[in-house]
């Protein structure tokens, strides 16, 4: 397999699989096919590291997006494994029909395709299109249960997402306008690699306006407060695998887009520094989500807010910039993806076993289901940023590297993290400990994806492989 093919394959495999899944019958077959396709995509994406692929006008592979692609395809693969057993149970209890499952699987692969496309796109227009496709796909998947709540969540997601799409497009057009006088008309003026070369000569005022629109447009997808409104409901009401994908991947993809544009702005000294804007939004998100954790009644919605909080931290880190903070941001993003998706796997199992995702109806999980209960404890410990797990390392770097520069901002962030810790553990106490509540039937699902994620997160807390570190450091330098 040559390198260029690998790049194509990352896009083609999901597309072909989506087509196949749309027509094949039987949920077992389709679920397995889904897993196989995801695995194949993942393996292909790993091969991107082995062969240096050639970048064209439309597709691009560099250090930055390699990290994202591998992460995305890996989580997509583990989620597909989880999804296979999860969906099976959903059919058994009649929440989903075979038809909607077929639709679900096809959409799953379309989503993979869209996200991969967004990541490898070397064209800001193409990237925009890909992210929008990903958004629309998830809208459909969120509404798949067709309950009142699910439809409402999907509708809200759809409307807010559409506005976000529009804003992002306007920003994209403005970037083109800024680039055109320098680069000239046509496709060239939308190609990343070209844009980056000439960014210093762009009209700064235009770039500023563009960035505002892009920040709000893609920020809606990232889930930054106050643009976050779709996120908690979409997470809570959709199927759990989709919650995992949303939190673990889609937010990252939108963030990736934001980072690309941030790099562009950073290269133009006359434009406003994107840092302060991102830092502000990051802090607002982190604080806001931290407070929102306290009064949650739905376990999935709670973790959705936790995603907002972490996205806030990540955006804060990237906004602060500098090699340490950028490294921390990348690490945090990776760890958050792995941890949060694993938490959603756990929560999915819990919700299936207990037949509810209301926190009030859950209790004493470590007694009735020790594996699930302790996994949840582990997940919350990890997501709350306690050592020796991965997120601690990134939070350590974010806070310690920014406190010397911006003590007030770092203090606010610390406050947010602490409030969030309080909120998460307040609810965890009720769910995992105390008097057991609810049924205590056996779990019919695969623990493998959950354990795999938690294993990686645990290892990363104390040991990062040098290759990964070198990659992250490169990217951190790129991000300036």
């Amino acid at each position, binding site marked *: 397999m040559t390198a260029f093919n690998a790049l194509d394959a990352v896009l083609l495999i999901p597309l072909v699989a989506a087509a196949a899944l749309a027509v094949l019958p039987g949920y077992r077959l389709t679920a397995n096919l889904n897993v196989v396709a995801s695995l194949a995509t993942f393996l292909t994406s790993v091969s991107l590291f082995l062969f240096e692929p050639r970048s064209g006008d439309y597709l691009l592979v560099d250090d930055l997006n390699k990290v994202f692609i591998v992460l995305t395809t890996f989580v997509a693969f583990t989620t597909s494994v989880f999804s296979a057993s999860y969906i099976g149970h959903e059919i058994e209890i009649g929440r989903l029909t075979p038809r909607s499952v077929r639709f679900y699987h096809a959409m799953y692969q379309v989503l993979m395709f869209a996200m991969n496309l967004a990541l490898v796109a070397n064209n800001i227009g193409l990237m925009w299109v890909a992210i929008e496709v990903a958004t629309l796909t998830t809208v459909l998947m969120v509404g798949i249960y067709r309950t009142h709540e699910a439809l409402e969540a999907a509708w*809200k997601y759809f409307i807010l997402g559409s506005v976000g799409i529009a804003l992002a497009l306007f920003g994209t057009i403005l970037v083109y306008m800024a680039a055109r006088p320098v680069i000239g008309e046509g496709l060239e003026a939308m190609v990343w690699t070209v844009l980056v070369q000439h960014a210093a000569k762009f009209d700064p005022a235009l770039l*500023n306006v563009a960035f505002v629109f892009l920040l709000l447009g893609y920020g809606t997808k990232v889930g930054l407060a106050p643009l976050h409104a779709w996120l908690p409901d979409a997470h809570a009401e959709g199927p759990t695998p989709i919650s995992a994908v949303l939190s673990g991947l889609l937010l990252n993809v939108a963030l990736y887009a934001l980072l690309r544009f941030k790099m562009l702005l950073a290269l133009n000294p006359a434009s406003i520094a994107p840092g302060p804007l991102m830092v502000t939004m990051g802090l607002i998100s982190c604080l806001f989500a931290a407070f929102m954790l306290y009064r949650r009644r739905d376990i999935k919605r709670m973790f959705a807010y936790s995603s907002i909080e972490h996205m806030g931290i990540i955006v804060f880190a990237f906004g602060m910039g500098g090699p*340490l903070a950028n490294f921390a941001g990348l690490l945090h993003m990776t760890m958050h993806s792995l941890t949060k998706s694993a938490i959603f796997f756990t929560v999915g199992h819990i919700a299936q076993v207990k037949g509810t995702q209301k926190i009030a109806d859950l209790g004493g999980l470590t007694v009735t289901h020790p594996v699930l209960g302790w996994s949840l404890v582990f997940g919350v410990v990890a997501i709350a940023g306690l050592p020796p797990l991965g997120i601690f390392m990134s939070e350590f770097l974010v*806070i*310690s590297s920014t406190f010397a*520069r911006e003590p007030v901002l770092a203090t606010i962030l*610390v406050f947010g993290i602490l409030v969030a810790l309080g909120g998460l553990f307040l609810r965890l106490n009720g769910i995992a*400990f105390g008097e057991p509540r609810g049924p205590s039937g056996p779990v019919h699902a695969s623990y493998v994806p959950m354990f795999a994620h938690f294993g990686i997160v645990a290892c990363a807390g104390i040991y990062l492989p040098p290759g990964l*570190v070198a990659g992250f450091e490169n990217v951190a330098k790129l991000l300036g």
Partner: protein
Amino acid sequence: MVVYALFGVLALVALAPVAIALNASARATALVYSASLMITLIVGTAALLALTGYDGAGSAVTLPLGLPWLGAHFRIDALSAFFLAVINLGGAAASLFALGYGRHEEFPGRVLPFYPVYLGAMNLVLLADDAFSFLVSWEFMSLSSWALVIAHHRVRENLRAGYVYLLMAGFGTLALLLAFGLLAGAQGNYAFDAIRAAHPSTGLAALVLILVLIGAGSKAGLVPLHAWLPLAHPAAPSHISALMSGVMTKVAVYAFVRITFDLLGPPDWWWSLVVLAVGGISAVMGVLYALMQRDVKRVLAYSTIENIGIIFAALGLALAFKAYAMHFAAALALTAALLHVFNHALFKNLLFCGAGAVLSATGERDLEKLGGLIHRMPQTAFVFLIGCTAISALPPLNGFVSEWLIFQAILLSPQLPSWGLKLMVPAVGALLALSAALAGACFVRAFGIGFLGRPRSDEARGAQETDTHSLAAMYALAALCLIAGILPGLFIDTLAPVAQMLTQGRMPVQTGVEWLSIVPIAESRSSYNGLLVFVFMTASGMIAAFAIHRLASDRIRRSIAWGCGYPDPGPLTQYTADSLAQPIRRVFGTLVFSAHESGEMPPPGSTAPARLTVKMRDPVWDTLYAPVADFITYASERLNVLQFLTIRRYLTLVFMALVLLLLVLAIWP
């Protein structure tokens, strides 16, 4: 050396999966605790050897773990060797105790996996030689102890205790994190060597000091950051409480000493002012709180706060002396503090083990339901009494020695030139004196109500002496209390390398002094000989007993107690824990706790019982914690509205954000 210690930690951590695999059977209990015992003993002994043979360099190792470009640095120097010895001694004692006590554990599956990990994490904190490894181990220590605190999670109070504990632990860790962030600078020089080499500016160092005081102080239980401690320490199984109170607080002291004395460079004089004040207040507040408690384990937990206060006051003195380059006096104060660290580890472990023995014998922690245990559990009572005597700073036991040294250090402080210290030190001296006296009262109460008198409940009436393992652990600790009390010179000399390392001064060599006295400064100035006091007291007591029994009478008759003419009243008419503390509550409690008593007297002729209600408020909780909790509740309630907006209103938010950002652009220069 450090490698062996790391292997010890690894072995401890590796016990956790073993415990899980053995599925908490009786065999697992025996295995985990005996293995922990062995490992802690070995590591502790090794650390002791490293301390006595300390050559000024220590041993270090860097592992390719942790932060990738930094690696995990581990190092043993005099300071960490001393604390390693203390911690592993405490760990060994707790493990030995748990060999017996752990058999009564209702949920071994929730204790066994975490126990060795907790021990390992504490060791790791002491070994860490860079900020990241330090914080990882530090927070990991909190986390594993949190799991132990909520081992009995079905009791609501325990869950709440664990929650408050975890929050405060997170708070402390973040404070330390910020401190290290400042020390390491934006470049992220996290290795302790690099931090030591970079001298922070005065203002920065001051901020670091405050942060460290918050971070380490919250773990140590300094007032007003102590709120979690009396909740969490008693909630855990007793051998864990012993570790948390006796040992983990020492890890916090270590953190403080490591950063302020070692990493932060030369101190400013006013730092000591802060530390002294916090220490003195903690000492008095801690013991006053302790006097008001009924739960014996909470009494012990609050008493930990008192002792930590004493330690910090001594550390504050050492800082003051160090700031004025009075190396000798600094060494004296630091040695006093470290000796108290060691002593407190001994007797607090002992007392918590005793409380655990009582708990497993009676199922009660409430003093008001105990009583008369000295008859049913004479050996436990004996060792508990030794612990009480030691913690009350009474000669010839060890608690007195360290307090005596602290007082000697205070007496050196008029030479300090600064006016602030001239006023602060005597005030702190008075607070320490007050706390010492109140501690005596507190432990008269704890021992007297718990072990003496007549049983106040059926459980206390039916108590049985505890098992041999537990007794062995407690006897060992009691013996150490005595040895440290009568041969303090030995321990002071052992501490000399630590003092030398941190203050560039040391106390005179004690082992050569005649009759094994200790002479901190000069013989004409002050000296103390615990051995002779012990010998004299024993001898005169024996002589008196012998003489009286031989020459006068040795007959005994038993009779009912003199009830001033009333017929034998029930055991409930005895003085209770509350009533025993009533005079002190009247004297201090009205001021500190706004204690308020109201009596309800039935009319004459009525047979209804009279009722006395005591209302007390916790000033620290009311002024510091409750407002924060209220604010978070309030804020989350207010913000929660944002979950229930209509789509249009969410769009309005987006719209506003857009307009706002455009406005920013419009007015951007």
